[in-house]
Structures are given as structure tokens and as C-alpha cells.
């Protein structure tokens, strides 16, 4: 525990880590601010302008022509069973359409800004874990530390624990703060959030925090293996530049199940459907689904195996290799 406390102190004292945490906080605040601003209530003046605009649109000859065309054959436009009333209901613009924003709904944000925040925090936590380990190698201070604690596995795991806990705590604070901010704003605007949505959000926060912590840990483990921050960042860059494209070219069905990105999203979103061009859809088959389900369990297992592999190789080689 003493060593873990030392490494946590080293983690949070690193200037680069502090800058990354600050960047994560600012970006999270930016997403929260954008969301809050973009869903602000419509004031009286805006409402009046929007109503006038709706009036103008519905009075225009173009609209009247479109409505008439629709009412002549509603099923052509809106499918079987549609009638003339549907044309008026669906073609007429609403004031909300004109204003261009909808009220804040936390249920909608789960699939929108909630994911964005988790992705941002996760990426920055990978870099934090990476730079935490990379600084020890770049400065050569690893060998100095080994003169005070020569048991290599203890050192590896204490640092790993610091990366996991440090990034986990930071992610928990940031992601939780994001949702608390949205919840308080929604509450202040008189928008209720149902218990089911709150439960969904709690689980999403838990998944997001665990993902970000695992990312920090993974970045650390990979850097301890490559012994260079730039090496790890280069691996991530190469993956970002072409890794997903290469995976999609794998000559196997449902290659998306091997994609880190798809599995990350399956984990964040509690499972999801993944597009797969290898699923045949005959031209005649209406409503054919070219997607398959990637479950939360699959995403979690995939990410766990990936991190486990890097961890084992990194820890074993740290034990065996000479320390510069």
C-alpha cells in the first residue's frame, strides 16, 4: 500500500498528467455547456418569432402545393395506411422545428453527449497512463526507483494501481460531474427525470468510469512494454489511422466483433447493433437488416482480454529485461 500511495503521489504530481486532467475537465465542461445552451428554454420573443415564421411557411404557395400533392396520394409519401390528416400533421412545421432546439432530456443525452464525454475522458486517460509510465523511462528515473524497491513486480503493479486508480478517480469525478450538472439544470428547468433513466445513467457512468480507468491502465501497461510514450502514441495513431479499416477487411463474417471501437461502443451503450456489409441483403427484400447485435458482455470480454494480454506481456518483460 505504501508503494501505491507513493505512485499515486507521483501520478498526480506529474505536470503532464495535471494538464491532461485539466484538458479533460475543460472538454467535459464544454460538452456540458454546449448541451445546456443548446437545450435552453424558448423565451417569449423567440416563440413569437417562430410562430410568425410558421405562419409564413404555411401561407406560402410552395407549402400549399406540397400539401395538396400529399393529400392527393398520402400513401405515396408516408406509406400504407396514411391519410390526408397525416399530411397536414407531418408536413406542417412546428415552432420547435423553426427554433431548432428541443428541451433538455437526460434520456436523449445518454446516447448523445453522454457518449461524447466518455470517449473524450477515455482518450485523455489513455494518454495520462501513457505519459505517467513514459516519464519514468524518458528520465531514466526507473532505475533510480529500483534502487529503493528492487522487487520488480511490486513496482510494476504499484504503478499500474496508481494509473488505474488515478485515471479512475479522475474519470469518476468528471463523468459524474457532467451528469450532475445536466440533472441540476433539467431540474431547475422543471424537467423531470424518471427513475429508469436515472438508473440507466448510473450504469452508464459506471461503465464509462471503468472504461476510462482501464484505458489509463492499458496505456500504462503498453508504455511499460514499449518503454516510450511516443511508442505507445504511435501504436494508437497507427490504429486510429488504419486499424479499423483493416479489421473491416478481415475475410470473416461480422468482422466488426473484432473491432476495438465497436466493442468500446458496445460497452458504453450497453450493447448495440453493428453494421456489417458481409450480411447479404437481396435487392427484393424490403427492410433487410445489415446489422448484428454486439452485447455488453462481448464488449467487456473483448476489452478485458485485450488489456490482459498487454498486461501479461508487459509485466513479464519488465521482470526479465535489463533496466536502462
Amino acid at each position, binding site marked *: 500500500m505504501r508503494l501505491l500511495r507513493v505512485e499515486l503521489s507521483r501520478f498526480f504530481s506529474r505536470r503532464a498528467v495535471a494538464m491532461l486532467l485539466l484538458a479533460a475537465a475543460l472538454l467535459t465542461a464544454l460538452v456540458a455547456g454546449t448541451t445546456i445552451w443548446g437545450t435552453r428554454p424558448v423565451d417569449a420573443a423567440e416563440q413569437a418569432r417562430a410562430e410568425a415564421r410558421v405562419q409564413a411557411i404555411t401561407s406560402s404557395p410552395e407549402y400549399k402545393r406540397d400539401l395538396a400533392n400529399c393529400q392527393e396520394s398520402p400513401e405515396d409519401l408516408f406509406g400504407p395506411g396514411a391519410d390526408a390528416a397525416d399530411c397536414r400533421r407531418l408536413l406542417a412545421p412546428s415552432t420547435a422545428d423553426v427554433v431548432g432546439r428541443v428541451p433538455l432530456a437526460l434520456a436523449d443525452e445518454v446516447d448523445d453527449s453522454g457518449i461524447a464525454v466518455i470517449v473524450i475522458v477515455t482518450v485523455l486517460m489513455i494518454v495520462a497512463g501513457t505519459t505517467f509510465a513514459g516519464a519514468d523511462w524518458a528520465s*531514466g*528515473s526507473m532505475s*533510480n526507483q*529500483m534502487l*529503493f524497491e*528492487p522487487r520488480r513486480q511490486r513496482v510494476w503493479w504499484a504503478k499500474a494501481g496508481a494509473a488505474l486508480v488515478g485515471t479512475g478517480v479522475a474519470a469518476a469525478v468528471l463523468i459524474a460531474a457532467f451528469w450532475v450538472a445536466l440533472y441540476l439544470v433539467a431540474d431547475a428547468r422543471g424537467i423531470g427525470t424518471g427513475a429508469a433513466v436515472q438508473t440507466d445513467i448510473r450504469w452508464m457512468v459506471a461503465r464509462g468510469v471503468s472504461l476510462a480507468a482501464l484505458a489509463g491502465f492499458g496505456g500504462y501497461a503498453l508504455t511499460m512494454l514499449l518503454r516510450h510514450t511516443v511508442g505507445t502514441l504511435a501504436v494508437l495513431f497507427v490504429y486510429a489511422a488504419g486499424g479499423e479499416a483493416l479489421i473491416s477487411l478481415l475475410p470473416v463474417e461480422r468482422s466488426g466483433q473484432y473491432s476495438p471501437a465497436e466493442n468500446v461502443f458496445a460497452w458504453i451503450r450497453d450493447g448495440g447493433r453493428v453494421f456489417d456489409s458481409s450480411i447479404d441483403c437481396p435487392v427484393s427484400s424490403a427492410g433487410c437488416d445489415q446489422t448484428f447485435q454486439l452485447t455488453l458482455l462481448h464488449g467487456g470480454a473483448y476489452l478485458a482480454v485485450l488489456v490482459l494480454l498487454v498486461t501479461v506481456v508487459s509485466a513479464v518483460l519488465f521482470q526479465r529485461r535489463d533496466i536502462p
Partner: protein
Amino acid sequence: MADTDAPVIETTGLRKEFRTRRGRRVVAVDGLDLVVPAGGVHGFLGPNGSGKTTTIRMLLGLARATRGEMRLFGQPVPHRLSAVMGRIGAVVEQPKFLPSFSGRKNLILLARTIGAPSSAVDSALAQVGLAGRGRDRYKSYSLGMKQRLAIAATLLKSPDLLILDEPTNGLDPAGIRDIRTMIRGLGESGVTVLLSSHILAEVQQVCHSVSIIGSGRLLASGAVDDLVAAGRATRVRVEVGDPVRARAILEEDGFRVHHEGERLVVSGDADEPFDPEMVSRALATRQLYVRELTPVRADLESVFLQLTRDDSLVSEPPAAGGAA
């Protein structure tokens, strides 16, 4: 249980091989048998690339030995290194600390690793004359200050064995004097100091005993006075009326002779005891009388140069193959 009278450092048949990037095998240490008795300052000498630092790194668990045995305080290392590391302070090659942390912060992290209090850090900083600069960033330190900080780190443990690799590198004359005084004082207080240095005069001034290695092998070991004394009788400076004829006579009798201005420097066969009286007798029997005969006082440098020159002549051919 370790034998309390055991040498502080003991290596037997120690060997270290490594491969270059091109796959060529290099032998850095080749069957080294090293014994450092308890107490006093022991010099560890050898030309660049002779295996000094590699030996130190193996002793400290930073590099793996290919073959051979090592003991510190009678304990086999690296197996039992953690049991004795608390008694060892070491500076290996360049000082290595995190550049963005202050000197004090770097030491505090190391101190916490071994459970030492912050007061130990302040005391160590004061001992090396860095009390006033402890809160400055390490990267702002001069080389000499970095060296002092590295020595301060070794003092955090109150070590029984201090391993110092070129500790006066980068220090100004006053700093060199301070560090030498400190090393001498530590040696006299019962701490065993292994001092690896290129500065032979420094070693002769500070060390009680010395081991000289070349090409990864032990060339000589013993008390400094004994080594120097052994070299004292091996050369004499001779002044005669006819140096050319004197040289011919002496070479005929098996002496090695070279000119030094108007004088001759005469040495015996390295394998035979050398008696300066034989020089004057050899010349006198041929009617050449010595005007002046001065024993050339050997110093550690001349002993070192002779040993390492001989070694380089012997070891040159197999060096390319790597195997001994």
C-alpha cells in the same frame, strides 16, 4: 543467515553477455571474481567499456547476469536483493530523476518508498549542500547539483554500503573536495564504499583498497599501498656517460630500456622480480659507471596503465568474437 564477516560484495565467475541490434554477441563482463571487504573505501577501476558499470548494475538488480554468482552482505543476489537493498545506497552512471519535479519532491518520493520521514530528505539535502535549492525544479540544476542530489538520495537509507559510479563528475573543485571528504568520512565511519572512478589520483587519495578490471576480467586487487609498492621497484631512471652503449648492455642482459631525454628508463621482465642493484652491477662490470640511479616512483595511474595496457594486448584478438 548471512555471515557477518563475509565480504560486503562478492562475485564469482560473473558474466554478462548481450546482443547488439545487429545480433552480434558482446561480452561485457567475463568471469569476474570480485571481493570487497567490509569497511573502508574500495576503488573500482577500469578503462571505458571494461565492465565496471555493468557489474554494478548487475549487483543492484538492474541487469541480469548471464552466468555466475553474486553476493551482497553474504546474501545471494538478485534472489535476496530486497533483503539487503535497504542497506545499500547507489549512484549508477548519471543522476536520474524526474525533471519536472523539484529535487526535494524527487527525494520525498524515494524516501516514502522506504518509509523514511521527510526530515531525512531535508537532512540529506543539507549534507550535500542543496538545502537552499531543494525546492527548485531538477531540470534547472547544474550537472554538479544533479550529482549532489543523487548522492543525497543514497544517504536517505543511512547505507552500510555505498556504491558510487563517478560521483564527482561535473562537480566544481570545491564540490569535488566536499564529496571526497564525505566519502572518506563515510569510509572511516564503517560504511563500505565502492568507488568507481576514472580519476586515478582521486582513487589513490580516497581508497584503501582497489580492484582493477579490464575487458570484464579482474586484473588486480588489493590494498592501494600494496599495488603501488609492487610497482615501485619495477623501473629505475639511470644517467650514464654513454647511454647508447648502456642501453645495448642492459638489453643484452634482458632489461627493457627506453630513452627519456639523456636518461634511460630501465624496467625488468614483468614475470621476474626486479632489483635495481642489478642494473648498476650490469653496467659496472662493463666499465660503465652510473652517475645517478633513481627509482621511478610508481603511482596508481602507472600501475593501472600498465595493467590495462597489458590486458588490452592480451584480449584484443577475441574481442570481436565476444566469447572468452
